[in-house]
């Protein structure tokens, strides 16, 4: 094996791809070659590093130095300084936003320092397209143990003892699910991995698949052995081309290594699987709709029972779990249930991956032990709210979840606490909102999403969400009436009680939680025709504050309708007749003079 002096791990996750990491990588390789270091420095494209906000990011080993926001232009300097002369390029280091001090090493950066990596343990460390790198990090040891040394009962017991619960949202005990599956003596059984991640702002599963696809495969293989299933599907949305590509590469390599297919590792156990690409319907994340989709039908949920465990894909018993759940299994088998269950809270064991996004400094992927307070995640890891704005709320669990206000920030993130507070763990989406977010508008956004993604099958979801959306539109447009809140509450109760599937049943949650914590905002919209966050344009009336106006005329120049009246060295004013509330002047004013 060839030995290199230094390894440059460039993040190849979707986020860094988007910010240009591949161009940087190409340039880096060319520059290293040019400066004669091609044989000394190895450039590796890894899966998602997690710190997407700082992308493109690169970690250089053996030092463990972290470079962020790289551009192609930075490359020549980086090569000649760091790799040739051994002088780190400080201007590309991470800068602590408060104290403005530089933090050169990755593990010293708070974003990384406060995390505990189990599912993401290989993120940013290995080339996801090389099975050897996964194996070098103890990959497939657990599968070997499970297939060669353990009985299905032992595997199930180990997983049960670990306390692992489904990471897709519902939090059902994975061990129990496998136990139920194993009880079925059907001739054909299927394993199913739900990778149809569709919550707006959620990208945990995508990153796991991109960074460490073999961990997921290994988990499925172990679970398949426990369930005595011999074929499986990974249902991944087609909008994740990189994840699909890496999965397919991983499957190919696993087959080559005899880790998939007939007689895996000489254990006599056969298992193979394929990736099925979903066409982008959110509802296909619901397991019965997902199964219908795999069968070639329109992805529409059907009533349960029968549960997929009894009658799933093509009518055969099917064990279905989420990507992150499967990725936990190899570590549980490898390091033992005792170790795993020592992490987390009484009822929620292990870690949880969150996709931290919204108005937060460190947008990215975060893995923390269950029970970590929200404040730790948002402030310590996330770096707080940018631009000195105030935290307002965090939306947990996507459109099915709920929002939590500032007073709930010390809430420990575990299944039960979140539900009690009106949110859910969900699959791990965490959207942070600052003071500029209108909570009615936010509820409207999610209701619009749910209505758009409703499959149309059951009446409450199809009609009810449309009706609620219309009411929210009305409120945001300034036509809200006092009884609208009552109707919203009543419809929410109807839909929760009577909708067919999880999409509908949880659809009203964003409205209910905003009504619970931010009822005053609804009332301001309805009774005072005022949007406190100044988001609902139809409720805005712009005026110029003469105290703050510097007579600069920026507002005048951007106004598209001639509503701003201004002459040189004169105070500006706004003609309300002509104003279309386009916000141009509001954004253009640097002195907060327009309100």
């Amino acid at each position, binding site marked *: 094996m060839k030995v290199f002096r230094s390894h440059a791990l460039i993040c190849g996750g979707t986020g860094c791809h988007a910010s240009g990491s591949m161009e940087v990588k190409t340039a880096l390789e060319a520059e290293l070659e040019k400066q004669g270091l091609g044989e000394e420095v190895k450039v590796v494209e890894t899966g998602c590093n997690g710190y997407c906000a700082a992308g493109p990011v690169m970690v250089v080993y053996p030092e463990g130095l972290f470079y962020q926001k790289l551009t192609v232009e930075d490359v020549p300097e980086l090569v000649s300084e760091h790799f040739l002369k051994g002088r780190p390029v400080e201007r590309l280091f991470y800068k602590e936003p408060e104290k403005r001090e530089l933090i050169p090493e990755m593990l010293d950066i708070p974003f990384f320092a406060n995390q505990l990596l189990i599912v993401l343990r290989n993120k940013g460390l290995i080339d996801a397209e090389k099975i050897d790198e996964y194996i070098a990090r103890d990959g497939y040891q657990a599968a070997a143990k499970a297939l060669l040394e353990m009985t299905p009962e032992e595997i199930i017991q180990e997983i049960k003892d670990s306390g692992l619960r489904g990471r897709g949202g519902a939090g059902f005990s994975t061990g129990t699910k496998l136990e139920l599956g194993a009880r079925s003596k059907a001739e054909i059984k299927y394993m199913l991995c739900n990778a149809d991640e569709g919550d707006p702002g959620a990208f945990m599963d995508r990153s796991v698949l991109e960074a460490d696809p073999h961990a997921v495969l290994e988990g499925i293989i172990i679970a398949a052995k426990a369930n005595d299933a011999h074929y499986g599907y990974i249902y991944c949305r087609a909008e994740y081309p990189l994840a699909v590509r890496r999965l397919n590469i991983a499957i190919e390599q696993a087959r080559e290594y005899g880790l998939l297919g007939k007689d895996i590792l000489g254990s006599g156990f056969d298992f193979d699987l394929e990736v099925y690409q979903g066409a982008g319907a959110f509802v296909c994340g619901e397991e019965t709709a997902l199964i219908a989709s795999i069968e070639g039908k329109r992805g529409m949920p*059907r009533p349960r029972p029968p549960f997929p465990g009894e009658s799933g894909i093509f009518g055969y018993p099917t064990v279905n779990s989420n990507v992150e759940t499967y990725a936990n299994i190899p570590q549980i088998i490898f390091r033992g249930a005792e170790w795993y269950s020592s992490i987390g809270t009484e009822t929620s064991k292990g870690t949880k991956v969150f996709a931290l996004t919204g108005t937060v400094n460190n947008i990215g992927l975060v893995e923390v032990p269950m029970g970590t307070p929200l404040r730790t995640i948002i402030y310590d890891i996330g770096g707080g709210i940018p631009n000195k704005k105030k935290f307002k709320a965090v939306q947990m669990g996507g459109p099915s979840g709920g929002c939590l206000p500032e007073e709930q920030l010390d809430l420990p993130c575990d299944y039960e606490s979140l539900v009690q507070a009106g949110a859910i763990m969900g699959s791990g989406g965490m959207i942070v909102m600052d003071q500029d977010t209108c909570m009615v508008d936010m509820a409207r956004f999610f209701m619009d999403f749910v209505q758009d993604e409703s499959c*149309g099958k059951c009446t409450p979801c199809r009609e009810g969400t449309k009706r609620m959306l219309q009411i929210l539109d009305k409120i945001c447009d300034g036509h809200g009436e006092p009884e609208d809140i009552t109707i919203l509450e009543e419809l929410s109760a109807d839909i929760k*009680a009577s909708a067919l599937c999880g999409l509908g049943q949880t659809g009203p949650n964003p409205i209910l939680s905003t009504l619970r914590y931010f009822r005053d905002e609804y009332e301001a919209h309805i009774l005072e025709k005022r949007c406190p966050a100044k988001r609902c344009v139809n409720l805005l009336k712009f005026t110029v504050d003469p105290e703050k106006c510097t007579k600069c005329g920026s507002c005048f120049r951007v106004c598209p309708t001639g509503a701003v009246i201004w002459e040189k060295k004169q105070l500006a004013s706004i003609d309300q007749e002509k104003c279309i509330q386009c916000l141009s002047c509001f954004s253009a004013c640097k002195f907060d003079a327009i309100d």
Partner: protein
Amino acid sequence: MIPCLFQDCLAKGCFLNGHINLSIDGKTVICPPGASVLEAAEENGIKIPTLCHHSGLEPFGACRLCLVEDENTGRLMASCVTPAAPDMAVLTASPRVIKHRRNIVRLMMAEHPESCIVCSKGNRCQLRRIAAQLGIGETGLYPMPNYKAYEQANPFMVRDLSKCVLCGKCIRADHELVVAGAIDYSHRGFESRPATVHELPLELSSCTFCGTCLSMCPTGALAPKNNMFVGTPDREIPTVCGFCGVGCSLSMGVFSDTVVEVNPSRGKNTVNGSTLCVRGHFAHDFLNVSQRLTRPLIRRDGQMSPASWDEALDTAATRFLAVQKESGPSSVAFLGSSKCTNEENYLFQKIARVLLKTNSVDNGGYLSGRSALAPLYKRTNGGDRVRSLAGLEKAEAIVVIGADVTETLPVVSYGLKRAAQKGTPLIVIDPRQTGLSAHASMRLPLKPQTDLELINGLSALLVRKKAQNAIFTDHFTKGFEAFKEALLKLDLEKTGRVTGVTPEALDEAAEYLRGKSVAFVVGGGVLEQRYAALTLDALFNLCLMTGSLGHAGAGLYVLAQENNQAGAWDMGTVPDALPGRQPLNDSLAREKFERAWQASISPDRGLDLIRMIEEAEKGNLKALYVMGENPLRALPQPDRVKRALEKLDFIVVQDILKTETTEIADVVLPGAAFSEKGGSFTNLEGRIQFFNPAVPPPGEAKPDWEILDLLARKMGSPRRFGSLERLRGEIAGLVPMYAGINEGSGAVWVVEASDKELFKNEGGARVSFAPVSSIEEEGQSDSYPLTVILGSVRFHLGSGTRTGYSGRVREFHQNGAVELSPQDWTAFGLQAGDSVKLTSAHGSVVRETAKNSALTQGLVFVPEAVHNNDARNLIGLFPLGQPDSPGWKTCPVRLEKL
């Protein structure tokens, strides 16, 4: 022991093993495991509102109106998809349930357009009914009508999806019942709707306009297109369809005294369940057309003029008796009807045999190949007669041979497609790609009229594979060894040459059938062809060899084109048998009837339909009585038939519509359509189905049995029957297989009375194998290089007399284009819209053309029934079922481009 109220349980004599006890609204109920809460409630008379549930469809759980509460757990659940569980305490109308249910209905109502006043669903609208029951008038929500495109381009149905409540019944009926694949869900959320591919109009989709969806639609989203009547019928009356031999149960919607709508009946265990076909649903327009015969007519000085019943019947009776007296019984003949009732056909042949002393009685069933079936009937001695179509869905394998069922008997095709959908191997043997081909495991594309060679080849291959059912052949048959020897001698290479089917394809087919008990569905392609009788023999041999007899889902399913084809035969409207299919030359049988009828009966067979025409041509036949048939349109060489019949001294036509045949009649007697009279039809399964009038006959028209009853009296019968009951009483006494006809309502089965062991509980004779015959390869003549295949289109039945009177059927683009293979299309230099003239040895037709890329070179498909059924010009008026007859299914032609 408490009886279980479930229908299934009652039938199985259930003793409550494993049954579930639960309480619904405080009442303790018992239901079998697997039953849903909704079913348990319904069986116990507790009504739960629902819009999406239908007993004929899989539970769906979409509308959520059937929400109930479990008092023990407080859980709300959709009762249609929740299995009943022990110790549930279900409340179907708790305050919580009512609150949510009301709100769901309010949402639906607020989304509904306000067009109830002009909605054809009228008071039958289930949404409106449920809203009424829940006391919802104004919804209290602002209206949010969900306007969607209104589609009414086709003549059969209107789709106003603004009124759609997305119950999904239409989509599920399409997928689960009729397997048409025309519609599915499209769009999402509030925009969701049932749609065709690319939202094409229905006529451009695979929709067959069977209307099954329309009858299930709970609102006015799907409605029949009817320019005559829009709204709620006064009453709905069950009856039996008068078109094909399936005998679907119908519900006739009647307003005032007019049939304004037809739907599948809601009866249980009917042939068709909730399905119908386009004819059954829409072609009953003929009942109300102005061409209906409403008063008796007599030809005076060459002109038809109205007459009283007395006068018309007197004329008919006197003239017939006079001709018979003058020229003898062989100068008169009676053509009965495969569309008229059993009672009418019985009376009809009795008049011929008793009052006119003639056995020259036939019926329209001749046209569908009855003569080829007679030998087979003899072979089984009348066993194997009763065969439920439902059995097809339990078959281990199905072979459809010479049957374009999606066009001829669509309701049978639904069952076949459902079976195929469930994975039953389905083999289609047909020279053309039929509607069923796409659902089939494979098609054997044989050359026309080579079915015999193919079936024998298949049998030989199975014998070579040692795939015969030895236990069966040992036990029930005789002559298997000889049969096997004969098969082993067959040259399979020759089979390939003659049939044009490759050895690989034949082998694949044999593999599908190996070790299975097989259902053979046999259609007109076999029954009306040259080797009809031999092919049926070969098929029956194959049934015997594979043990495909004696249980449901196996054996020969011989299709009947006409509604009472079987019954007319049973009732003796045939030249060689007495009622009960008792042979005329059986003296015991004859004596029985002679005693009962107090008349002597000639043992000599009379004239069949073709012989009647031939004898008329020769001048030997002088008088003909036609009831409910239109030979001038239905027979080959119509011009020749017309010339022959015009030679007759006297012709009486008793019918419901003005036809080509009534035009040449001397006396026309206006009869009643099936919806206007009582009676019974026997369908192709052997199910005798009774019906009562839905409306009175138009004008002075009378039920046909009444006309015959009056006529018989005028011809000298001592007394009238006067009622259907007395008629049925006589039939039941004389015809053992119709012992059940006294029942008079619902349905009874034909009683089988075979002496063969196979069809008896014990004892009896064995069934023998028929000799194996082989046919030679046929050359094509130079003067007629193409081969025409005549076939039906699903919009018409038979010759199209009745269906042709349906305005909706006529309006639906049916130019009756002849179809050519792409090769021939190119060879003749044809362009879209070109017309061609096809000429055979017997006549010609001029039609537009269409290219059919699935058609084999050299074949031309000519649709029947359209253009006054001029396709019949091409074939010769040869007898059917005779070894030397070329058959009516194909003929050689030449083509000229016009």
